[in-house]
């Protein structure tokens, strides 16, 4: 039997801390881009925005099924660009591309943004650079999954997950 979640009386056994961080008020800090210029066998792929989900360019893909985009995967560190599937949302199609250097996401670009709803476009245009910034700043990009909730982000999250999957991170 799992311990009861509501343990009466044990109020202070874990403190909930307020992280004094105002979301949204945070200026975009320009961190020096960590250009982990690839060395070794990995080639840094280049890619143009692909409509649909077929990759173009040079590079090799291995170790993933149904890979799109360019770059190298396989083994433990992927390098290159990887394009996520286009996700249909109620606001229109969303498609995300990531650039990966040795297993770490260094750039995230929205190839397709929603266009049938002005607010959604605005959100996407504002947010994409912030995501790029965060990925560099927090080095928070060695992830294999994303977890989020708001329904408007679902298309983006799904496409981002798809790109991560294709990179085999």
């Amino acid at each position, binding site marked *: 039997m*799992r*311990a*009861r*979640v*509501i*343990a009466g009386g*044990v*109020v202070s*056994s*874990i*403190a*909930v*801390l*307020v*992280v*004094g*961080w*105002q*979301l*949204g008020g*945070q200026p975009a*800090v320009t961190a020096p881009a960590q250009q982990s210029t690839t060395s070794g066998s990995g080639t840094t792929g280049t890619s143009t925005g692909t409509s649909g989900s077929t990759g173009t360019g040079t590079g090799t893909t291995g*170790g*993933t*099924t149904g890979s799109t985009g360019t770059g190298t995967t*396989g083994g433990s560190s992927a390098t290159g660009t990887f394009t996520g599937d286009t996700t249909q949302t109620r606001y229109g199609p969303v498609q995300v591309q990531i650039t990966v250097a040795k297993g770490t996401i260094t750039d*995230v670009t929205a190839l397709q943004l929603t266009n049938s709803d002005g607010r959604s476009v605005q*959100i*996407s245009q*504002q*947010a*994409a650079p*912030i*995501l790029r910034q*965060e*990925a560099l700043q*927090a080095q*928070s*990009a*060695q*992830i*294999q*999954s*994303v*977890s*989020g*909730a*708001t*329904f*408007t*982000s*679902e298309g*983006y*999250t*799904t496409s981002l*997950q*798809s790109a991560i*999957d*294709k990179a*085999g991170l």
Partner: protein
Amino acid sequence: MRGVTTFETMGTVVSLRGATPEAASEVRAVFAGYDHRYSLYDPSSVLSRVADGSVRLADTPSEVRDVYALALDWRERTGGAFTPHRPDGVIDLSGVVKALAIRDAGAVLDAASGGGDWMVNAGGDVLVRGHHRSDDPWSVGVVDPTHRDTVVGVVRLEAPRRAVATSGSAERGEHIWRRAAPTFVQATVIADDIVTADVLATAVVAGDAEDLRRLTSDAGVDVLAFGADGTVWATPGARSAVRTEDGAASAVT
């Protein structure tokens, strides 16, 4: 190398790592089975037929009643913040069935991999076993509810904390029914099992700050919650998931 498998189910996408093709198809069947019994979007599902009155709850298969009982148990444990009842009285078990499917998928992957490494992600709810690589734990990016395209934190899942789930105030499926003005717009819960993580994420978003304190009081879970006022709340164990500009989160007592 066993790669990534993805498929659509329950209105979302499931992503698998470390699954053989055979295990992946078995996992797919697990999700399809739950969807078939519990989806309120499918008028032929068992639960839809209960909702429209054509089948009595007492006449449903025992596993359906067991899931309902489990959901009722969670309602008690969360002080009512989580509930399987829609405001119109319809029984809606979507708050637990995805997590149950993930749990059962984990059992499939455990059996197939013989204790190997795997990850299952269903619409942002994640359960893992082992490690991503020998030294690196499976890591899950948490999406910022305000800047919806931004990853604000990274949860590193290491045993026994193998599960993470996120709920939001605008979540599709509408299985969160507020009791009061919203305090939190998004909550991520890290727990030992995916059902606890998913249910408590729902409960935190449905509740207020007092509910959050209560739900985290037994130290069985870690929570990263985003307040409607822009603040971020984190249990000590979850604080490391979020890095602020100066690299440290400050505690307010």
